[in-house]
């Protein structure tokens, strides 16, 4: 029996634009176990990014409940959510989202800093793992796209979270670099048993996952 990591129950998300209400998610039920590797696919506007943001505690659902590691986090305060993001979740973004004024090493240690720790040793190990040793003191704008994404991956692993969320991780990269990044992500899943949730619109990338969740008009189909 696999250990349950995430459970979403009847999650809905609505936006108001002016007085008009838009339902982005219309009742999502989803269970993910530790070690899962799923890809979320769907046309734009289907709510895949919103779903990922809710899983990542960057956004809150309008209705429904969200259990992470068997804790109902629907009622968490902003501070509690920040702690969850910091300790349990690692983010990999399409456009890397590194902080330009910080060095590579500082970017990677940032999650540890917000946890109240200083751990340059671990950051250096992680950078070595993504083959970016010797680049510690570079600034992000001195790196190529693939290198930036590898820094972002190292950063996402800094606090050793069990869940890695990747929002179009190869979207801004050429196919060869994209493949290198996917290799790293796959190995995180295989070797370190990280649970990975990845949003993509690239069928060939999605096929690398164990399972594909397709969204359309706010429903899982």
């Amino acid at each position: 029996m696999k250990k349950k990591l995430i459970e979403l129950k009847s999650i809905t998300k609505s936006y108001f634009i002016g007085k008009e209400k838009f339902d982005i998610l219309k009742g999502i039920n989803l269970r993910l176990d530790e070690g899962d590797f799923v890809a979320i696919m769907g046309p734009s506007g289907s709510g895949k990014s919103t779903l990922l943001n809710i899983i990542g505690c960057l956004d809150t659902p309008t209705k429904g409940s969200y259990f992470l590691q068997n804790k109902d986090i629907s009622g968490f305060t902003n501070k509690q959510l920040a702690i969850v993001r910091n300790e349990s979740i690692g983010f990999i973004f399409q456009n890397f989202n590194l902080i330009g004024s910080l060095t590579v090493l500082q970017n990677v240690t940032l999650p540890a800093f917000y946890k109240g720790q200083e751990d340059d040793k671990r950051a250096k190990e992680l950078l070595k793992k993504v083959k970016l040793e010797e680049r510690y003191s570079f600034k992000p704008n001195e790196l190529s796209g693939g290198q930036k994404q590898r820094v972002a991956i190292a950063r996402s692993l800094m606090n050793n979270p069990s869940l890695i969320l990747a929002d179009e991780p190869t979207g801004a990269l050429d196919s060869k670099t994209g493949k290198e990044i996917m290799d790293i992500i796959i190995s995180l899943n295989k070797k370190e048993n990280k649970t990975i949730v990845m949003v993509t619109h690239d069928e060939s990338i999605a096929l690398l996952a164990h399972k594909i969740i397709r969204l359309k008009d706010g429903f899982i189909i």
Partner: protein
Amino acid sequence: MNIFFAKKLLRLAWQALLSNPLRSFLTTLGIIIGSMTIIIVIALGEGAKRDIEKQYSSMSVKTIIINAPSTSEGEKSKLNIEDVDLLIQLPSVSMAVPQLSGRVEMQSESQSSNLAVLGSTPQIQKLINLELVSGRFFNEQDDENKAKIVVVGAIVAEELFGSKTADVIGKTILIGKKEFEIVGLLKYKGASVGPTAVDDSIFAPYLTTYRYILGSNGKFNINMEAKSVELIKQATEDITNVLKISHNIKPGMSDDFRIRDMGTTVSSAINSSRTMQILLSLVGIIVLLVGGIGIMNIMYVTVTERTKEIGVRKAIGAQEEFILFQFLFEAFILSFVGYLSGFLLSFFVIWLLNIFSVSVVMVWWSYILSLIVTMGIGVFFGYSPAKKAASLLPIDALRYE
């Protein structure tokens, strides 16, 4: 929030400010000028106060001065030497001394200069605390005899005989065509005593001055001392009554004399310098407020520019208070560095003012006051943009382009 975060966030804020040094400098300029203004204004105010205190320090607060106001109608005041004899009889008055003063050309053997002459009775020595370096002061006999003797101030000795402490006793001064013998030399005071510039004056017996030097061209006033501080008011009233009768001033006519007591004069002088100091300090505070608004303005720009960065920080687990303090520390550093610069600049400006012999006195509490006001304003105006940054929703901040 603990020391670990405070240190790290302070460094972060410092780096952010250094990444745009020109902007940071321009932002803090208002704070620099404002904090400097407060320090300098207080130094100027203290300088003025000290000047006043020095000027009146050797003069008793019991001193009362009566003079003849310059009348526009050209009507001459009846205030004269005979009033002194009347006023000395008042029970509330312990001393009444006439003063006849003016400026005349005087010569020694080698020099000549235009200096002040003050004719009075021997009591003047006690009244305004004249200290002798050598020789003696004139006495009652000298006055009665209209003796041609003078006591000279230190500057007079310097002007006419080359040194403040020259051996002048027995030497003669020529005023007009008359010779006067110097019998005493006064100690250098460095400041005037009330309205009397002691160092620049020669002192002579009243009758001598009237008869041989100034005649009716001199300015006449009467210096008196009340018997006690409590009696100052009584004495002022008594003097008014006596002079009204003696000058034959009918009800409805304006007085041809003016009475000032030193206590009131000094306190009103100090009050007016205090008022000036408060007004100018307000100007400093207004400059600081404008500087604070400048900080707030730029902080809002910074927060907007760095919305995406804030989003990233929140996504990887920065709590609201970390973001709040990161930006609040920027305002804090801008204010503090602004204050330090203003503080250092104030030394330079005060040094300049000293060169132009403006009297300034640095006081320690002006630094504290300026620091408190500056930091208060900086942090007050920095709070709102920092709060805005802290309360951004992570998803909105991340999506911001």
